[in-house]
């Protein structure tokens, strides 16, 4: 009797001890993470809700009254009354469609080159990464100068090669590809992430192909690309999200011109909110952008099941 009572007691104290420990862990866990949780509430969740509400009003900094107007802002957007909305949306889509594959394909092949055992590898890596740390404002100044139609280096080089020159940022047709080109200078971060992915591919896999007598193409097709699909997936999502939100380049390089041909969505949003002070309407723009980015991200996630291979996962 006594023995059983004793064991019962010790189990009880052990349980008490563990809940006490758990409670202590919960307290300290929340204490340590509380600045981040507060930050999330103050700077993300709160503004998000506020922005959704604002998008249903006609809030304007310079007007004394603000009234709730329901979905009017969204109706104005989608009805075509605001033709700049569709224009900026089209421009941004065009930019994303042009830029994302370019960034992914070029940085993928640059990473493969940098992964080779060539002389001066570290120096090449530094040179390719360096432009990505240049402030967007300064990089834009440099590219404005390189792409200057009269005195820029690019046109000088083209005419030296007897090729047709371009108006670059000042041509209605060439402005978006030109901006894509300027942002390609900064793909170093993406390259390094690919490089990290490549270093995780076991060398023995390639040796197996060597034994089978396969060349570089079958290595690329059957090992490198499948093994790197998680990295490709990650980089694609990040590049899509980043490309939809391009702002500094748009602001400095073209201010939306020529003839609104580079009116990027976030630039248009900024202009609506801070130059025209139509903050209610601009909030509706922000929510449209949010939903578009969400749709794209979900699409990539959904399709990822069919093309992303995780190692150790059963097929």
């Amino acid at each position, binding site marked *: 009797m006594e023995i059983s009572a004793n064991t019962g007691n010790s189990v009880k104290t052990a349980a008490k001890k563990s809940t006490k420990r758990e409670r202590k862990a919960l307290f300290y866990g929340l204490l340590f993470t509380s600045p981040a949780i507060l930050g999330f509430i103050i700077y993300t969740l709160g503004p998000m809700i506020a922005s959704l509400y604002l998008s249903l009003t006609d809030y304007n900094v310079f007007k004394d009254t603000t009234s709730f107007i329901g979905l009017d802002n969204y109706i104005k957007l989608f009805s075509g009354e605001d033709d700049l909305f569709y224009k900026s949306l089209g421009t941004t889509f065009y930019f994303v469609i042009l830029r994302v594959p370019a960034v992914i394909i070029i940085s993928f092949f640059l990473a493969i080159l940098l992964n080779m055992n060539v002389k001066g590898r570290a120096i090449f890596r530094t040179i390719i990464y360096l432009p990505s740390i240049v402030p967007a404002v300064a990089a834009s100044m440099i590219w404005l100068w390189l792409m200057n139609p009269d005195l820029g280096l690019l046109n000088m080089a083209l005419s030296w090669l007897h090729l047709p020159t371009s108006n670059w940022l000042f041509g209605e047709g060439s402005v978006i590809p030109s901006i894509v080109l300027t942002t390609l200078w900064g793909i170093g971060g993406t390259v390094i992430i690919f490089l*990290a992915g490549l270093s995780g591919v076991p060398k023995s896999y390639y040796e197996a192909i060597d034994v089978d007598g396969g060349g570089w193409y079958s290595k690329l097709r059957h090992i490198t690309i499948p093994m790197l699909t998680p990295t490709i997936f990650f980089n694609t999502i990040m590049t899509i999200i980043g490309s939809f939100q391009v702002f500094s380049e748009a602001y400095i390089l073209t201010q939306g011109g020529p003839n609104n041909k580079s009116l990027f969505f976030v630039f248009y949003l900024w202009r609506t909110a801070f130059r025209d002070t139509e903050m209610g309407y601009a909030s509706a723009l922000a929510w449209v952008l949010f939903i578009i980015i969400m749709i794209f991200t979900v699409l990539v996630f959904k399709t990822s099941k069919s093309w992303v291979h995780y190692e150790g996962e059963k097929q």
Partner: protein
Amino acid sequence: MRESRLKLTAGFTSLLIVSAMFIVPFLWLLRSSVMDLSQIFIMPPQWIPKPFHFENFKEALTVVPFGAFFKNTLIIVAGVLIGTVVSSTIAAFGFSRIKWKGRDMVFAILMSSMMLPGAVTLIPSFIGWKELGFYDTFYPLIVPAYFGGGMFNIFLLRQFYMSIPQDFDEAALVDGANYFQIYWRILLPLSRSAVIVVALFTFLASWNDFMGPLIYLKSDSRFTLALGLQMFQGSYNAQWDLLMAASTAVVLPCVLVFLLGQRFFLEGITLTGLKG
């Protein structure tokens, strides 16, 4: 795996060409920054200016108060740096070294904020700071860093903390240490390189920030270098020599910081990339 000589030569040559393409904009920037306008108009272009006009820097940096912009940028960057390092290491500790109920769910919710485009929170944040009377001050640019310091940094540090064996903490807890002591005496010293990575990324992000200062700062005297450079472009439109000199001055600190911390940068990016 042995790579054939032919393949290595082809790889080396391709890298040489690509590197040249990446480096030419820098060279063009530098050479333009030490030329006067008449040299800039010479055809075919000179790569090495004759003579050098180093006085461009003096002129470019004095016609607009770049000294004040530099000081403003330093104040903001320092404030953001301290806040980010302190609050992101503390939060990452709470999300990795303490096991508490609901931890991973809270972390996942907070991580979702990384997907949210900045444009969504921009307008209400602006209105909030303005209502509080902090429009045209540095506070809106600095204070948020003290509340978590960004999920990207917390994620990166958490990845690193999880790779450190938990035994240390348990031994210390048994010896009667509290969590603050474990954080301060064990985790921080062991994660120095990860903290440096966070500091470097934060420095660059804050130094390069354009949209934040553009929205929150109004008076010229409070401008940052990024804003100042943009303002300079507005007023000295066709003066490419001076504009390039000013751009060089803005780029240079970043390049120096990068070259000094290069090892940590590459490690840091690798740390974020999918190892989790």
